[in-house]
């Protein structure tokens, strides 16, 4: 019984760490959905490309933090290019077309990565390797730092949305696109900016998460599904809800993997999603709509 409690506490820490990574991916996804009704299927691939850019920069500069910044900026710019070239022509059409376009995009990006980098997983060296004692485990400090850094990035985003000029514009556009453009807000540019921010955050989480699993071309697939689940469970387009849902779902999966394999634990989050959709389709962590 003693051991079980230790395990549960360890899994709580694990769950929060993965939850923060997931929150970093999902907040970009939910922001993009909230502002332009785009369900971005390629979000996992942006995460994956971010990790690869991190690998390359790290190999050349041996500086993890530089790699993190370079990767976010590069993939953010790529996101802007993608938005302008493939999503802008689809504005005003059925949201479904954006699913299709981004699905096509994810196929292209994934196979591009396979072609460029090959099927062998790459490794990102963590910036420091210290451990501390967590019950019977030597728990790496790096994981704690990931969670804190993710929280810091999300906090930064929140401050930007609250006080930044463009942040206020983004919120205004989310509320009412037409009114915002009537007030002189450059809505198309805001769309591009939001996509770039979402892409950059996905890339950052790719670099941060890289040291834990290794980087390969298919790593985005699992995450994009999880991120979708989180975005729906948290209430589509709701930033705070997505963050809570990320932690909630990651904790559930972490506890479930005490009994079943991690591959099967994902079913828990699937079930949460389906129950949410059936009984509270507006999302678990949002106030009841009137």
């Amino acid at each position, binding site marked *: 019984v003693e051991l079980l409690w230790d395990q549960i506490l360890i899994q709580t820490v694990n769950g929060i760490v993965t939850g923060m990574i997931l929150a970093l991916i999902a907040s970009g996804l939910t922001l993009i959905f909230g502002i332009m009704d785009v*369900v971005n299927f390629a979000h996992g691939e942006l995460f994956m490309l971010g990790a690869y850019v991190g690998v390359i920069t790290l190999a050349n500069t041996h500086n993890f933090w530089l790699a993190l910044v370079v990767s976010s900026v590069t993939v953010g710019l790529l996101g802007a290019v993608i938005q302008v070239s*493939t999503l802008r*022509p*689809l504005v005003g*059409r059925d*949201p*479904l*077309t954006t*699913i*299709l*376009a981004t*699905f*096509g*995009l994810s*196929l*292209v990006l*994934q*196979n*591009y990565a*396979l*072609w460029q980098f090959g099927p062998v997983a790459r490794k990102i060296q963590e910036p420091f390797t210290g451990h501390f004692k967590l019950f019977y485990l030597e728990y790496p400090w790096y994981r704690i730092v990931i969670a804190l850094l993710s929280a810091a990035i999300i906090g930064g985003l929140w401050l930007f949305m609250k006080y930044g000029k463009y942040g206020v514009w983004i919120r205004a556009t989310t509320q009412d696109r037409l009114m915002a453009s009537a007030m002189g807000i450059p809505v198309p540019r805001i769309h591009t900016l939001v996509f770039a921010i979402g892409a950059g955050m996905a890339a950052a989480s790719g670099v941060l998460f890289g040291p834990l699993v290794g980087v390969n071309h298919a790593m985005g697939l699992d995450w994009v*599904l999880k991120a*979708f*689940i989180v975005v*729906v469970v948290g209430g589509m387009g709701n930033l705070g809800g997505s963050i809570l849902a990320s932690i909630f779902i990651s904790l559930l999966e972490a506890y479930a993997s005490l009994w079943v*394999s991690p*591959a*099967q634990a*994902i*079913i828990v989050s*699937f079930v949460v*999603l*389906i129950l949410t*959709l*059936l009984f509270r*389709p507006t999302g678990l962590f949002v106030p009841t709509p009137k």
Partner: protein
Amino acid sequence: MTPRPSVAYWTGFAIILALLIAAPLVLPEFWRRFVTEILIWGLLAMSSDILIGYTGMVSFGHSAFFGLGMYGAAAALLTVRPPNLWLAIVYGLVGAAVIAAFVAYFSTRLRDIYFSITTLVFAQIFYVIIFTWTAVTGGENGLTFRRPELALPGLFSMPFTSNTLHWFVLAVVALSYLLLRRIMRSPFGMVLQAIRENEPRTRAIGYQVERYKMVAVMLSGLFAGLAGVLYAIQNKFAAPDFVFFLISGEVVVFNVMGGMGTLVGPVAGAAFFLLLREGFSRFFTEYYLIPVGLIFIAMVIFMPQGLLGFLKRRLNQ
């Protein structure tokens, strides 16, 4: 009401059917197999067109029905001796139907993107189950089995050759097409199209929209399962890769490329996609999805009606 099908339509149908019947006699082995495969993927795409094109519900979970058809056929072919073709079909259809009923019950309460995500998630649940339940499904390796004989009980029985397999698949696909076409032109099909055009109004008129949607998902799943059975018989294996959501995505790609809401369009889309894949994989080997994906994106942006819609418009000009 719909106008009587013109003579031109049936002539076209007869010509294409005749070409497909003659195909294996003139084509070399590789292309013979290729045409058979197009037909099978075409049936899968056609089945999803019932939802995507006619009812306006984009299913991202057709890999589940297809895969259950495959594994159902595998169950029949592995447990019953000697392997029986018709039993494989029955098992596959039952497997797909049970899953389809389950998915239909939950997913039809939701609309638009939420429906898509729910179907996608259901498909992934079955994928995880199949992938991890190694004792029964063979896990990652899947199941292999022998191909059953083409037999009518009491009449004849002979092993499939690649020609008879092609004709058998062609017969199943052509009959399914005629049946689905008939269903989509029936009052039931009209209600589905009404739901696509204006769901609140359809409900206001007094139709039980949820019930119609449920039946549509089950019908669609059933034919997707049939495609899965055919694929299992052609390839003599069932693998979890075919339950993975990328297959569902490809099915949607077929629909968009060919033209939704036409039944023939998705088949043309499947043919176009497989031809592109074949052509590009000669230059790009396994990275063929890079050019194919780019073409697909361009088609979503510039050709939203798909190949068929595009041709139709050009012909009308």
